[in-house]
């Protein structure tokens, strides 16, 4: 590995009023920090402690909502500190998860139309497209090379939230290969649903139409939030993504995008996905080699 994993030091514990405990595992984003957050969240939910209302793992921090009438704050803090301590001694390195192929129409007309309406005063380079700008600030040759970098290597769902079902995505590559793009100068009041966006080091897929500040690169072809639960992938729950999911974007053409729309209308669309065990040590030691191994799980599905 060319850059060492940033050390994960002891977390910072602080309160969000009398109903929220906030645990900042790290100030900066890293795979190791996100893995630690997810491990603490998993152990805490296994305890099924009465008085826990919500356990929300985020990129590099954890938010826990509790009912202080049932669970005193000090008891909750002690419990989470104990879990954190145990994890520091017994490195939990593997995560049982799944890899999912997400078809994307890059450089699509839907996001282009919206981008067109938010240029002057909103965008750093109002004269060009969001992808052109992203390619430039990442010192890449052109939009095509940026798109290639975007879908070639998979991403980890490091957090779900902002609005219902929106995944934050962290690409599984060395830090110096991470795509970083500033957010819009001022947020848009409109973003098409299923926009594939990017802000800072995070990718995302907008689950619903609405405000947004991330750069827009394309449109995901299939729903990720389905309150009607019409498609088979939403039978159990209206939100598709979970923290810890691994996403492999697959570029599709307009014709392929349209045929997916037909499958969705017919109710037959299924995401291509496969169960995988994600091993942190392997991911840190040889990201691209390990990604290859992970992506092979999608072969033949």
């Amino acid at each position, binding site marked *: 590995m060319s850059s060492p994993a940033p050390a994960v030091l002891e977390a910072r514990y*602080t*309160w*969000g*009023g*009398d*109903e*929220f405990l*906030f645990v*900042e595992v*790290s*100030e*900066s*984003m*890293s795979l190791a920090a996100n893995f630690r957050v997810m491990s603490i969240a998993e152990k805490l939910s296994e305890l099924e402690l009465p008085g826990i*209302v*919500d*356990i*929300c*793992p*985020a*990129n*590099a*921090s*954890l*938010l826990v*909502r509790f009912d*202080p*009438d049932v669970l005193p*704050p000090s008891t909750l803090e002690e419990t989470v500190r104990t879990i954190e301590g145990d994890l520091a001694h017994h490195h939990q390195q593997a995560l049982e998860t799944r890899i999912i192929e997400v078809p994307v129409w890059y450089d699509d007309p839907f996001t282009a139309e919206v981008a067109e309406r938010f240029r002057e005063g909103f965008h750093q380079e109002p004269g060009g497209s969001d992808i052109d700008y992203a390619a430039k600030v990442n010192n890449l040759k052109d939009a095509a090379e940026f798109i290639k970098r975007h879908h070639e290597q998979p991403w980890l769902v490091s*957090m*779900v*939230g*902002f*609005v*219902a*079902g*929106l995944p*934050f995505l962290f690409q599984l590559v060395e*830090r110096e290969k991470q795509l970083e793009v*500033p*957010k819009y100068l001022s947020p848009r009041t409109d973003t098409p649903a299923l926009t594939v966006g990017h*802000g*800072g*080091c*995070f990718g995302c897929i907008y*689950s*619903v139409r*609405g405000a947004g500040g991330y750069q827009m690169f394309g449109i995901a072809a299939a729903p990720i*939030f389905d*309150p009607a639960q019409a498609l088979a992938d939403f039978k159990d729950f*209206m*939100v598709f*993504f*979970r*923290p810890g999911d691994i996403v492999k974007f697959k570029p599709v053409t307009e014709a392929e995008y349209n045929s997916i729309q037909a499958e969705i209308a017919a109710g037959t669309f299924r995401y291509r996905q496969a169960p995988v065990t994600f091993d942190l040590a392997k991911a840190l030691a040889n990201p691209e080699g390990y990604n290859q191994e992970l992506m092979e799980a999608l072969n033949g599905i």
Partner: protein
Amino acid sequence: MAFDIKSPGLATTVQDQGRTGHYNVGIPQSGSLDQYSAELGNALVGNTAKEAVLECTYLGPALTTDQDAVLAVTGAPVEVKVNGEPRPQWTRLQLKAGDELSFGVIQGGTRYYIAVQGGIDVPEVLGSRSTYSLGAIGGFHGRKLEAGDRVPVGSPLDGGAVPDVDTVPEEFRPVFAKEQTVRIVLGLYDHRLTDEGLDNLLHGEWKVTPVADRMGLRYSGPGVKWKEREQPFGAGSDPSNIVDAGYAVGSIQIPGGTQPIILHRDAVSGGGYAMVGTVISADMDLVARAAPGTSTKFVAVSMDEALAARKELAERKNNARAALGLSG
């Protein structure tokens, strides 16, 4: 039984105690912003605290009932009318089939509540009838009411038993003042503010701006200062940015150091702005009652004080229920 909506009002939605357990995937709590007022409305008509009510914002609806109905209007002061005749607020009302309920101009605060015996009977989504408009779930088809809607009302509990007393005594009604003192627990990222910034937050005068809704309330005032730093990897470029994290309901963020925003029940569940403190649970209803222009002081309290205030509010609710002749 149903209400027929003649005119919907500005933003009338179905709400209850809210939806928890799905914040980890970005589905917010929702629910009546002023829980105290909604709960006492339910108590007046013989409902439990769980029944769904209609939350009206500034401008209420005009509706008719297709059957005899028992209802009460609580919350912000407003002229209540049945068939055009004024009726008291915080008091149980009997409507006949075909009667029309409508409202005059709001006289303070922001939101008032229509509680009806049997509750608003829309389907539960993820354990709650509350409307989450952005995700288009819960409530009446996931949206605010529109003219022509037929809003279903449930069957009365306990055969329609109501409390002995039909009006909430004055002393148990909330005050809708033009000045508020809001108690907060400092924390989360308050260490990122300069001493001067923290001083401004706690000693400055802040005013609720018109940018205030179910997601949050924005305040104008002296602004604050953030400490300069080399931003951590993954955090945005502004000193008020952090690596995107979960947002506590009631937390205060100050993007760019200019206008604090208190996140309320429909707020986004996370994002990249540093929070500097959180409104205590006992004062969330108070914040919900603030109209634009309300002058606000933020006072820092300890966790123990926040818990004591929580207990006091629960006792006040119990005493109000006792004054109606209800137990517990």
